[in-house]
């Protein structure tokens, strides 16, 4: 009798495992295959790609798309701008967010509740697009790189994550001991709090970094000057507005047909080129993501 139930249980467990394995395989393929396809399509013959003949391996390999991409001045300008906005922007983000988070984690700081409220309100209310746009205009921030750096450089969600982390990782005794040795808040923050929060700095730094890298909204609204356009706006021109390539069809005739034939290869290639830095960083940093969300989830 008990043997029969055991067998039935084994059967159920086996069935469960098969279903689970199948579900995982399906999810994995659904996510990985489109990305893999973009990669192989970026150096395959566009005609073969569009007729469904490139499925598992690249065919008709050529690097023409990549050559065109790297020969295009707009891509380089966009890349340079984006790298600058991303690095400088993230630095400013951290310089503003971390000290504020530290202060808000100090229980003896009397103004901590009202100031916290001041931040939290902005998560639920905002002035909307138009008043914000007019403010930027009045401050003469439109068409300058500062608009990528300064406004909204404190993300309240990350601020709360950092504050919670400081609250949980810095025992009060630590600060009391430091004060006994004549340590000030500046010194304690720089010499004790920050070195203890490398995981936190990586997580939040990465969130900010990716946000800057992928941001196109700021440029769409506030930037008209071509010299200041970030990579994402250049991408939009190439991928979505169907603008033909600089030294391609613009010259007309035969060159036009040539560019058209490879237009898709260029599009696939540009997707890879623009996402590469994030994809390279990703495996190294992904183990921190969950930690970041968990730290935040403790006390939303």
């Amino acid at each position: 009798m008990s043997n029969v139930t055991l067998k039935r249980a084994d059967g159920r467990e086996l069935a469960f495992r098969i279903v689970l394995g199948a579900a995982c395989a399906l999810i994995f393929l659904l996510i990985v295959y489109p990305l893999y396809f973009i990669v192989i399509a970026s150096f395959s013959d566009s005609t073969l790609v569009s007729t469904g003949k490139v499925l598992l391996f690249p065919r008709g390999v050529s690097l023409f798309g990549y050559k065109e991409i790297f020969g295009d001045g707009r891509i380089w300008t966009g890349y340079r701008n984006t790298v600058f906005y991303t690095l400088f922007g993230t630095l400013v983000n951290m310089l503003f967010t971390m000290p504020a988070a530290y202060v808000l984690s100090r229980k003896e700081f009397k103004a901590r509740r009202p100031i916290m409220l001041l931040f939290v309100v902005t998560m639920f209310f905002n002035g909307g697009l138009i008043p914000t746009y007019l403010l930027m205009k009045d401050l003469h921030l439109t068409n300058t790189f500062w608009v990528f750096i300064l406004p909204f450089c404190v993300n309240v969600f990350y601020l709360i994550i950092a504050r919670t982390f400081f609250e949980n990782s810095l025992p009060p005794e630590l600060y009391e001991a430091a004060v006994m040795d004549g340590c000030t808040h500046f010194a304690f923050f720089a010499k004790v709090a920050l070195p203890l929060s490398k995981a936190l700095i990586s997580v939040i730094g990465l969130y900010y970094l990716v946000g800057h890298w992928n941001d196109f909204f700021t440029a769409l609204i506030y930037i008209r000057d071509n010299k200041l356009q970030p990579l994402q706006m250049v991408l939009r021109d190439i991928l979505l507005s169907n603008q033909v390539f600089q030294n391609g069809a613009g010259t007309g005739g035969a060159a036009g047909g040539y560019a058209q034939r490879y237009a898709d290869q260029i599009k696939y290639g540009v997707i890879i080129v623009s996402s590469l830095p994030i994809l390279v960083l990703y495996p190294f940093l992904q183990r921190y993501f969950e930690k970041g969300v968990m730290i935040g989830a403790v006390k939303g």
Partner: protein
Amino acid sequence: MRTQGRLRLLRRDYQLWIMIMPAVAVVLIFNYIPMYGIQLAFRDYDFSKGLTGGEWRGLHYFQQFIDSYLFADLMTNTFLISLVTIVVGFPAPIVLALILNQIRRKRLKNLMQTTVYLPHFISVIVLVGMLNVLLSPETGAVGYLMKSIGLGHINLIASTGTFIPVYVLSDVWQHCGWNSIIYLAALSAVDPQLYDSAKMDGASRWQTIRHVDLPALVPTIIVLFILSMGGILSTGFEKIFLMQNSLNLPVSEVISTYVYRIGIISNQFSYASAIGLFNTVINFVFLLAMNAISKRVSDTSLY
């Protein structure tokens, strides 16, 4: 006495004040001034008098929006896109988290997690670009495959019938994994003893999911559901804007893209502010209503 105490506090804490001032200043300038500027929705915009100097018009611009021939379409489109996004997109990460949580082998679980989080980091532009190149009926592989299995010449990215499915499914593809993190965190907090006793009672893993895992997620589900209902009329601007073309515009024009068109492109600042504010108010009403319902039904609420 009191002022003396305050002075002493200020002297003790002046370094803390210095450290928090930059963040406070930035938030006051870039978040609170525009909030004050919302009154633009009730005024004419007068370039020479600045954001709040124009003549008071009361609800004129709101009336103009409600009377506008586009009003019904905009409301329907916005509401429909959000609703489908919530109906399809909300349960997906819950299911995914329950599946991932069942994987016993650590390495496999890590691999799966790394994979499902990945699309979240792709930019909107790249995502929409991917949709365009893959789904295009002339040159896209998916378009070709659909033709070859006899589904005919359907332009998935430029027809009114397919806009919402493409928008919502690609959204699930991109964010489902990332959104599952919070549920996985909740599942990892389940008391292991519960699993042991379920096993003792002879529960199958399917039963464990239904009677242990799912109940453990309920509080998280409710809070996130209330929050997502609060965004019922705030479809993201970026992806819809990028996916719009002249052929799908009848279903893809939503309030946020209309505000952009009216405000930033046509410079009708007061009218656009009024539309934006109208949207915010409706969202807020929905949030409060859902919160009230949830408080009655389940004792879980945001505050």
